[in-house]
């Protein structure tokens, strides 16, 4: 049992109860957030997996085709051919939030021209490489969107999970223990207080019931040489017992 180190007072009890309430609310909200994030991630999971695999394969073919082109034409000629390409895919990136996580949506428009270079001084391998990279390029917007979403959602989910766990297994139990401890301590103190009052009552009430006790007979110090009326009055006992009802 762990508890926070605070003195068991009534004001601390109130404060900690409030904080516990707050922590419970936070836990509920975070738990909901966790649910939403996992649903979102599971929804994306399948697409992401297949798309990434496809993408890696496409890229691989594209790189191999490019290698071959460079071997047959030389790097410089490939670069020249690339100069002829004047159009490409335009993208529009927008963000919308899922539970405070910015999730991008990518819209793609247009496409690069097919074989814009002169056919006379290029090889067929260049066409292959170009076509392969077109394939890759067409998938890029979707892939970027998915990859970024998955990355961010996963990160946020892990963070939320950690917080939920911290609240559920450490914070809330600690506070509950502390509340229990303070309540016990306060109750114990109350019982002690009642007992003390009872005891005091019997002590002060005794002179009326039984014979005066020696304590009250004895003057503290007889400065008046036994003639002071004050000390003689106290030793009388009796009437003072009315004070505690």
């Amino acid at each position: 049992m762990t508890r926070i180190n605070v003195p068991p007072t009534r004001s601390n009890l109130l404060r900690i109860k409030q904080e516990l309430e707050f922590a419970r609310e936070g836990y509920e909200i975070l738990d909901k957030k966790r649910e939403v994030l996992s649903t979102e991630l599971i929804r994306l999971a399948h697409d992401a997996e297949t798309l990434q695999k496809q993408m890696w394969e496409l890229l691989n073919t594209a790189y191999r085709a490019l290698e071959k082109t460079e071997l047959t034409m030389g790097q410089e000629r490939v670069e020249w051919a690339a100069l002829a390409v004047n159009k490409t895919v335009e993208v529009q990136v927008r963000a919308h939030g899922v539970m405070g996580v910015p999730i991008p949506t990518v819209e793609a428009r247009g496409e690069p021209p097919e074989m814009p270079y002169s056919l006379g001084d290029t090889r067929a391998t260049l066409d292959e490489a170009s076509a392969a990279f077109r394939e890759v390029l067409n998938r890029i917007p979707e892939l970027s969107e998915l990859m970024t979403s998955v990355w961010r959602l996963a990160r946020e989910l892990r963070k939320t999970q950690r917080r939920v766990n911290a609240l559920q297994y450490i914070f809330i139990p600690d506070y509950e223990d502390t509340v229990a401890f303070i309540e016990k301590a306060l109750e114990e103190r109350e019982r002690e207080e009642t007992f003390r009052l009872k005891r005091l009552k019997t002590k002060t009430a005794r002179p009326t019931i039984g014979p005066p006790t020696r304590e009250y007979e004895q003057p503290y110090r007889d400065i008046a040489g036994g003639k002071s009326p004050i000390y003689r009055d106290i030793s009388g006992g009796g009437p003072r017992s009315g004070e505690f009802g």
Partner: protein
Amino acid sequence: MKMLVIGHPETVLGFSLVGVHGQVARTAEEVNQALDEALSAEDVGIVLVTEDVADLIQPRMDQLKLRSTVPLVVEIPGPEGPRPDRPSLSEVIRRAIGVRI
């Protein structure tokens, strides 16, 4: 908005065949500089960085992948193929949710 490639010369050349401009970068400084330019440019929508150079500036890449929306910063494999130490997307998801889907 446009796309932009940063990193391996092969990748940059390949994408230039389909009209995507690129910046060849081999060292951490070059990548950082290219990224700075790409981030400050207004018409860049997606920045593709090859994995081999992304490794050189991993902390910054992680930051960008998580925070930057315009432009989106995405890692793609270089000519050597995807790195074996890269977690695939399903791996990332599995780690986050805690169960295999």
